[in-house]
């Protein structure tokens, strides 16, 4: 079945395949923490692993972080990874028909658009 699919895909002209792929606004973009092809397949595994490490063990500062994803990939138009099918997260998830739960709780806006803490940061004595 899989070979049949591959043959079918190969038979289709690249131009047609390109027209189907989501046109994403990658925001600031730049060098990702891993190769983009790897991220496309594995980003959810990296984030889900890190979420347990951070929430339950308190391990912070990993290079894999949802907030870091958003910081780089929020659209420069609406400052979000959601909003339309051009936005980075929503666009691809709509294309792949995968429900995205992260932003029920997490911010879809980069940290620079968060209100800063109003409270002085005195160290613990």
């Amino acid at each position, binding site marked *: 079945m899989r070979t049949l699919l591959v043959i079918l895909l190969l038979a289709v002209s690249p131009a047609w395949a390109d027209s189907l792929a989501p046109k994403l606004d990658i925001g600031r973009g730049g060098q990702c923490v891993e190769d983009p092809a790897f991220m496309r397949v594995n980003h959810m595994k990296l984030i889900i692993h890190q979420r*347990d490490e951070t929430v339950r063990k*308190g391990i912070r500062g990993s290079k894999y972080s949802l907030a870091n994803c958003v910081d780089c990939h929020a659209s420069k138009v609406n400052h979000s990874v959601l909003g339309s099918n051009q936005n980075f997260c929503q666009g691809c998830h709509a294309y792949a028909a995968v429900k995205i739960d992260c932003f029920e709780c997490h911010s879809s806006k980069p940290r620079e658009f968060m209100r800063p803490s*109003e409270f002085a940061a005195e160290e613990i004595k």
Partner: protein
Amino acid sequence: MSDVNQDRRQFLARGSAVAAGIAIAPGMLLFDFARARPAGEPASSAVRWGMLIDTTQCESGCDDCVTACRKENGWPEPKASTDVQWIRKVELKQISSGKQTSLPMMCQHCANPPCVDVCPTAASFKRADGIVLVDKHRCIGCRYCMMACPFKARSFVHEPVLDHDSDMPRGQGTVESCTLCVHRVDKGIRPACVEACEKGGHRAIVFGDLNDPNSEISLRIRSVTTTQLRADLGLNTGFSFVGL
């Protein structure tokens, strides 16, 4: 231009010296200048975070700590009794003497937390450093923990959350409570309520490491009489009160 480069060089040299200091002497005095955990290191059970509430310093009617918590963690002003409330002010009056006491009430970060015992999905958990948290990825919103808590410290999020924050994710259908400002503590800085209380001219809340005999909180607990709330339940709360 050369000045700028020089500054940068000095800064980098100083930075690497500091980093080397940490690496050479783990757990030694050098650590004390900042409590921020290095990236990649988990919370340690060598530390137990706690708070001391000095009710003699807590002013009746002042709710700076509550406002600070709301702003820092992004929960809206409660209007109904079912609304989210991570911290509240409690006014007590002893009927026989008329003595009045004011204190902030929140999660007591128990060593033996009943909310963790009853949680069917292990969403409610105690971190190695004694902070009791809700893992909202696992929380199914059953609210057993709210019933188990003798301090009424937890709330359920009934409404959708629209104004998300990167530091403190919140979402509808989960239970939440005081996190001891875990996002700040992990950076080595004090919780927002402590800062606000001090900024308001009071010193009613002391935050620190109960396991460190030289921390401000340990020194205070050694020198004055303190009580834990509902000590009869054997929860060994991370909070102690002066003047109760």
